[in-house]
């Protein structure tokens, strides 16, 4: 049993819904109790979809449990087929129906429906949303792909590739697909099939005709890509084009596999990030300490952008999906930091509190945490929120995606010029500390903090200050208050670490400046 206040991922059948909803002509019949239909609103409200997800729910109640829930399922399946006339159907159970063991797949097989019916076995008590999406996509590909279809000879046509992994409710999937399609076009490559997003049953059947598969979202498409590799004996591109450098790598990799020259595509890129980042105005970004958390693919890619494209220092890196823990640990090792693989947001909060970063790059969950600990934050990964579906074009992949990321990662910070002004005016009586930076609405945050219920921190959450035996003298505390708020946490932490290491029990003004000179870069 695991205590959870917030979760990063929904149950696996929600992952299956993301695949079904992304596709055209597919209908999913879910054996589930009344109430599980809440999942429909994720699609209609968060993503503002103008159609209901193609899902029929049996919505059984207690009185049905005594009767025949299997018959209820069969009736729902029959009615859904008659009403929606899908080209293929998915059948499965949510967590509760899994316990009553009606076997939707077996029941469906006895009904002789005139369309392919694909059973989904998604263990709800051990797996989660991304796994459910991946398993569903794999099941669809396995059932529907036509293994006899191969690419036509290359003469007289442009090479073509499949873009695999985008779904409904995906973090910027809609715009990523457009951006990557444009990018491939500059390279002279056509997109054959995008799946699951927008794909029909016929599209899935035709997957074999592409020259190459591109695994855009490994969390969803990795297992299907492995299956296609085996079935068609062709490679998958696994470089995810998030960030300027990764996009260049991606272009070269695709070009290499298809025997194309990457130079024109790289030259044609509307890439602003490199100059925006190298321009002197961005100097102040140097060494900003950032904490990165999200799904493994986005977290790893964003950590690279943070370090190699913005000059930040990545002090923490983590992901919530254990399926990709190995990749994340390798990336953390490369950054020389401790990885954090957890789906417990309290652990993430404790790590952020302990590391005192200057910027948090995370999910909506980290946005809430950052609000509580008064740190700037940008959202870089699912789980999604209505804000993650902007009206404007806003990819995170490709060269335009890198431009978007520059803005996303820099805007939460105090601007360079503003930082100088803060230093200049920090003694001004009207420039009160408590006011904080306007963009964080910190005056409200302060009130919120005061109104918050009393919460005893978990042992792991205890800050360095609490377990060390160092105390601040009033003079030193006053001097600390003169340091701008956005570096004060770091100064406090460094000074305490410095004092603790030297057995100093009372921090004086002297200790503060000794520590400053010790840590100065």
């Amino acid at each position, binding site marked *: *049993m695991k205590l959870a206040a917030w*979760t990063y991922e929904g*149950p696996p059948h929600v992952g299956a819904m993301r695949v079904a909803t992304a596709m055209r002509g597919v209908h999913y019949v879910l054996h589930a109790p009344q109430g599980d239909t809440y999942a429909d609103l994720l699609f*209609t409200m968060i993503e503002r979809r103008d159609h209901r997800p193609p899902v029929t729910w049996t919505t059984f*109640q207690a009185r049905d449990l005594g009767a025949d829930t299997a018959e209820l399922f069969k009736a729902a399946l029959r009615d859904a087929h008659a009403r929606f006339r899908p080209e293929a159907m998915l059948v499965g159970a949510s967590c509760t129906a899994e316990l009553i063991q009606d076997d939707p797949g077996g029941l469906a097989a006895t009904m002789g429906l005139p369309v392919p019916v694909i059973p989904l076995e998604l263990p709800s008590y051990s797996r989660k949303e991304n796994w459910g999406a991946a398993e569903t996509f794999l099941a669809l590909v396995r059932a529907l792909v036509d293994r006899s279809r191969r690419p036509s000879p290359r003469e007289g046509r442009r090479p073509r590739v499949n873009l695999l992994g985008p779904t409904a409710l995906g973090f910027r999937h809609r715009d990523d697909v457009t951006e990557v399609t444009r990018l491939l076009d500059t390279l002279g490559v056509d997109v054959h099939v995008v799946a699951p997003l927008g794909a029909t049953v016929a599209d899935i059947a035709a997957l074999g005709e592409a020259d190459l598969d591109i695994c855009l979202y490994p969390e969803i498409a990795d297992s299907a890509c492995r299956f296609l590799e085996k079935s068609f004996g062709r490679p998958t591109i696994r470089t995810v084009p998030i960030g300027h450098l990764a996009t260049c790598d991606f272009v070269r990799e695709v070009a290499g596999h298809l025997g194309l020259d990457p130079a024109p595509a790289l030259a044609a890129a509307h890439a602003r990030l490199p100059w925006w980042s190298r321009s002197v105005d961005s100097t102040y970004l140097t060494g900003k300490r950032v904490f990165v958390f999200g799904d493994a693919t986005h977290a790893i890619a964003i950590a690279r952008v943070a370090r190699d494209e913005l000059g930040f220092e990545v002090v923490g890196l983590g992901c919530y999906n254990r399926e990709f823990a190995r990749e994340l640990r390798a990336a953390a090792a490369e950054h020389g930091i401790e990885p954090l693989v957890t789906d417990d947001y309290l652990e993430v909060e404790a790590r952020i509190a302990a590391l005192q970063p200057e910027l948090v790059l995370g999910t909506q969950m980290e946005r*809430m945490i950052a609000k509580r600990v008064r740190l700037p934050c940008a959202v870089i990964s699912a789980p999604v929120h209505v804000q993650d579906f902007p009206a404007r074009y806003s990819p995170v992949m490709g060269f335009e995606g890198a431009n978007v990321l520059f803005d996303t990662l820099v805007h939460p910070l105090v601007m360079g010029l503003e930082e100088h002004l803060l230093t200049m005016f920090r003694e001004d009586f009207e420039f009160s500390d408590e006011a904080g930076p306007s963009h964080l609405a910190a005056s409200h945050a302060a009130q919120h903090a005061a109104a918050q219920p009393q919460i005893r921190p978990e042992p792991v959450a205890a800050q360095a200050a609490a377990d060390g035996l160092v105390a601040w003298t009033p003079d030193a505390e006053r001097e600390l208050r003169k340091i701008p708020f956005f570096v004060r946490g770091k100064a406090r932490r460094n000074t305490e670490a410095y004092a603790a290491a030297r057995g100093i029990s009372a921090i004086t003004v002297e200790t503060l400046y000794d520590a400053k000179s010790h840590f100065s870069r």
Partner: protein
Amino acid sequence: MNAPAVAALAAGAPRPVLRERGQREVFCGLTGIVWLHRKIQDAFFLVVGSRTCAHLLQSAAGVMIFAEPRFATAIIEEKDLAGLADVHEELDQVVARLLARRPDIRLLFLVGSCPSEVIKLDLAKAAARLDAGMRPRGVRVLAYSGSGIETTFTEGEDACLAALVPEMPQAGNLGQRLLVAGSLADVVEDQFARLFADLGIPADVLPPRRAGQLPPVGPGTRVLLAQPFLGATAAALERRGATVLPAPFPFGARGTEAWLAVAARAFGVSFDRFEAVVAAPRARAERALARHRPLLEGRRISFLPDSQLEVPLARFLAEECGMVPVEVGTPYLHQRYHGPDLARLPEGVRLAEGQDVERQLDRVRADRPDLVVCGLGLANPLEAEGLTTKWSIELVFSPVHGFDQAGDLAELFARPLVRRQKLAALAPEAAT
């Protein structure tokens, strides 16, 4: 006493009801935690369930709450099901961890879910065991079910309040007291408290704002339901000797007046005193409603089943705003509690109990009402079909009861219509 209101209480002839069983597009009872945990400020709601339960609560409440919520889910895992872990031991550990983190909690609810009920996890027993251990620390532990197989949306609050009833102290023989049952926004509760004080009626509320303030109950208790979904709570109060007063629900000027009048009559308040107390707020409510009436009058409205507020709200919209209810769908129609409002619905309204969502949407498309009240999963798709919708959940989350919210309540229905007018140039049909 107020003659018209009393006359209207006479039950009308039974109306035909369309009863349907099919796919239901409704929340389960766990959703009630979203407002209950705000209402009882030192209570914590621990759902014993699956990742789906946690995901539902987060989806229903997540965007609204930035503070640490006073609810969580103990997620049942594979090893619990396989019998590799002792579920009760696991639960004890979860509760210990929780209470260590939140020393301010005085009342812990173990909330049953679909999976906990299907595996027959006895949470009442677990709560009793934990309660015995926690009592010396000043923490009470109770259990109720919010599962989708047992409860529909607002029935979760009913189950929660019913679980509190046995814990209420026995009232002494100090004569009659009024008990207002059903969670209301604090501001509304305070308004009602002032009105009852002015009427000279001693009144308590259930649920209380703090766990230690449970009101007394006994044969002298007269219960006025503030919400139409509290059948189990009413029955539990009756078992404690209380008498439930049938009344229309306090929506709008006339609904609120009739509701108060029932209490006034039970407590022997004179007509003059009643008039003196309600005249001013009633006039305020009527003025506020008059502003919205021109827009709402004659507009046709359909309700999809959601919260059991549908019948009283349809009564309010028809009687006080001049709207024309086409179909009023409700998950459950309780003649006993909905009767007084039902009696005041116009002739020809199609009443539907239960749901078959596809057929119901077919009827909505055929009826093409001016406004459809429905859940969040259906609203945008219906808007995309050119219908105007009102999210039903807002009617549960917003302060809408009483005289001084009458205008706000009407405005909730007027807003989608106003918005459609304002944005007429953006509609797809305007572009062609």
